[in-house]
């Protein structure tokens, strides 16, 4: 057997045995995908389910149509009419005091304008320091305005300019569905890769066994190769675990499962290479982990996990495109949702492979220098 493969296998076995004996690390490897996914379910559930964002209404018209509009707003599942106030000033004060997220002012002549084929308006003041809540109020009021017009159209035959927008996602998924799941798998892989590298190198250094390992007849490539192989086994387990959770939650994976494993393995290898480079400069495992967590949080936004790079400003787009993780996340998404094959995602794979080929030798070289 080739000594490089033999030595790497021995190191991989050693690292896996070590992980089995460390229940905290093992639990963390299994627990953190569950926690991340649970939090995602909480966040996305809030957007899907009905909620009751408080608003106040000032009806200055007092017409049958304004009352119909108030009735429409009252039955909305998104908002809750907390108070009916007399004046516009009082409505604004309520929002400014933080007692309500939005105030709807229905001005005089509202009903008359609607019945006479003219443009009526309502004034909606929102507390925009609360982004998601104010957005929900705006959406609810716009939806209910449309519904009121449709009712008036049926009851009074008023003429409408109504354009229905029919959404058709390419994959057939509902647009508000689980669009971040592949990105979440990517992020779990990145976080896992960082943690695996800390376990494999920095903690070994702290225990003092890394120096002994280097002093054995094995060469450094075998040591790093073995550690990488062990981390890839852990990563494969993690990927399988996450995919199982996704499938149990109703996700239909369109593409090849093997391709998904290939992509997460490449993401993990790149992340580990980068972490190994960093570990040659930062010797404490705790400091390195903190540093890596600090790197990971901005990646939620910049690695294309939760929003496409094309939706970022020019500078952010350039940074996002320069990150190999973005290509990995994009490949994951295209395989999982659109069912694309290896050929279609080859540019993404190429970027990841080239990045690994640059960073892994660099990590080995830097590590050699610090010994």
């Amino acid at each position, binding site marked *: 057997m080739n000594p490089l493969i033999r030595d790497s296998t021995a190191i991989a076995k050693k690292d896996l045995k070590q992980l089995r004996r460390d229940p905290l690390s093992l639990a963390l490897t299994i627990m953190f995908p569950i926690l991340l996914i649970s939090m995602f379910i909480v966040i996305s559930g809030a957007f899907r389910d009905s909620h009751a964002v408080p608003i106040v209404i000032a009806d200055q018209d007092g017409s049958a149509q304004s009352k119909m509009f108030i009735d429409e707003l009252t039955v909305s599942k998104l908002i809750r009419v907390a108070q009916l106030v007399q004046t516009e000033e009082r409505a604004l004060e309520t929002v400014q005091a933080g007692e309500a997220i939005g105030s709807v002012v229905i001005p005089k002549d509202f009903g008359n304008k*609607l019945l006479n084929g003219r443009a009526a308006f309502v004034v909606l003041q929102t507390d925009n320091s609360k982004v998601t809540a104010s957005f929900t109020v705006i959406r609810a009021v716009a939806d209910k305005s449309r519904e009121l017009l449709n009712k008036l159209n049926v009851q009074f035959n008023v003429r409408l300019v109504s354009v229905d927008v029919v959404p058709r996602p390419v994959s057939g998924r509902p647009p508000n569905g689980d669009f971040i799941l592949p990105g979440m798998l990517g992020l779990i892989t990145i976080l896992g890769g960082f943690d695996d590298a800390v376990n494999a190198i920095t903690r070994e250094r702290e225990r003092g066994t890394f120096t002994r390992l280097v002093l054995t007849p094995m060469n450094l490539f075998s040591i790093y190769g073995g550690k990488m192989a062990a981390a890839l086994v852990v990563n494969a387990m993690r990927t399988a675990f996450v995919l199982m959770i996704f499938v149990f939650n109703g996700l239909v994976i369109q593409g090849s499962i093997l391709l998904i494993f290939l992509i997460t393995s490449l993401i993990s290898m790149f992340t580990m290479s980068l972490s190994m480079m960093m570990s040659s400069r930062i010797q404490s495992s705790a400091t390195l982990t903190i540093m890596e967590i600090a790197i990971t949080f901005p990646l939620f936004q910049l690695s294309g996990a939760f929003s*496409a790079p094309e939706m970022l400003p020019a500078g952010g787009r350039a940074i996002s495109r320069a990150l190999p993780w973005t290509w990995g996340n994009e490949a994951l998404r295209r395989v999982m949702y659109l069912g694309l094959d290896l050929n279609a995602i080859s540019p993404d794979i190429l970027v990841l492979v080239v990045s690994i080929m640059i960073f892994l030798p660099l990590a080995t070289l830097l590590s050699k220098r610090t010994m």
Partner: protein
Amino acid sequence: MSGLKVPRDILAVVSNELGVFRRNRSAILISLIVIPFFFTVSLGAGQGSAATFQPTAALPIAFVDNDLSVASGRLYETLVRSEMFNRLIQGYREDNALAALGKGSIYAAVVIPKGFQDRLMHNQPGTIIVYVDDGAPGVGNAVLSAVNATVQTYNPSTEITTSAYVEVAGFSTIQVVLKGTRFSGFALGLTITMSLVIVFATFYEIAGGMSREREEGTYARLLVSPVSLGAIMIGKTLYDLGLNFVRVIVVLGLAIYVYGVRLNTDFVTLLAGAVLIALLTMGFGLLISSLGVGLRAVVIIEFFLILFLFAFSGFILDKELMKGIPQIIATYLPWSYGIEILKRTILSGTPLLSLTSQLQFVGFSIVLFYALSYIFLKLARERLLK
């Protein structure tokens, strides 16, 4: 002399902490420069500068007009003039557009079906179909929201106007006139970034610092020294408040001078908000370290604390949108009140002292954390002295 003992002890703890910090170059770099700089610049990269950024503006989107009518032409103009679609591409056929979706050349296709104008003229709703590439996260929602918002101002019968209030002759419409200060993504993100930087660095400095002392063996020596527990806790708090001051300055400096953010509050109010979040985190850090956890556990707790804050403290999702258990967590999570204080003061310009309920909750939590830490540290000291 005894009256001076406590301040002298506090000063000794502060100078000891600073001495340890000064000897650790990577800690200085990470804590004071890398974390604040990295988080703020990442925010800038993700949200642009203080100007309002429209995420769909630069997306290439196909406009397929199968009706070729005046009404469909006006709809195209309405979309273009909204400034939400600066790369609306004409010339695609429906089948070509569908084939291109998912490949990265276009991200959505707006299709106007035949008979669009006829339906409108017969007092029926016109229908448009929007195909979206849901292989790109967030694109579907963003495009659909922007199209929905734009068609509200659509007017097929008169000349297009760019004013927000549109009079459509002969048709009944309801225009929702939006009021309330609009904030840029960067300004909104600044409150989150500042809180994140403070919590992230502070928790590790306090809880991690004490756990490291425990692992190095200096913790026990500190506890059994003649310095009172109160002096140790105040000393560590003052030292970390100093570091947080530097961090807030770095974040604010970048936000104001590089990204052009304008604050709606004065510096003292902003600093007071930051101090409250820092004290809250320090209290929690002291509490965790007083339970005797190791450095690795501190790092793990830190990771989950940040995740927890992301999910429940109004970082991303306002607590008004939560219900059930998440709502209960958000209601009792003191950081969510601290973040609300920062948001309301920095963004809306609300006077700090008018936020009484938030201040009370944060104040109570700080006292509770510090009191519990004191009790646990005292118990640890007694155990050591036995």
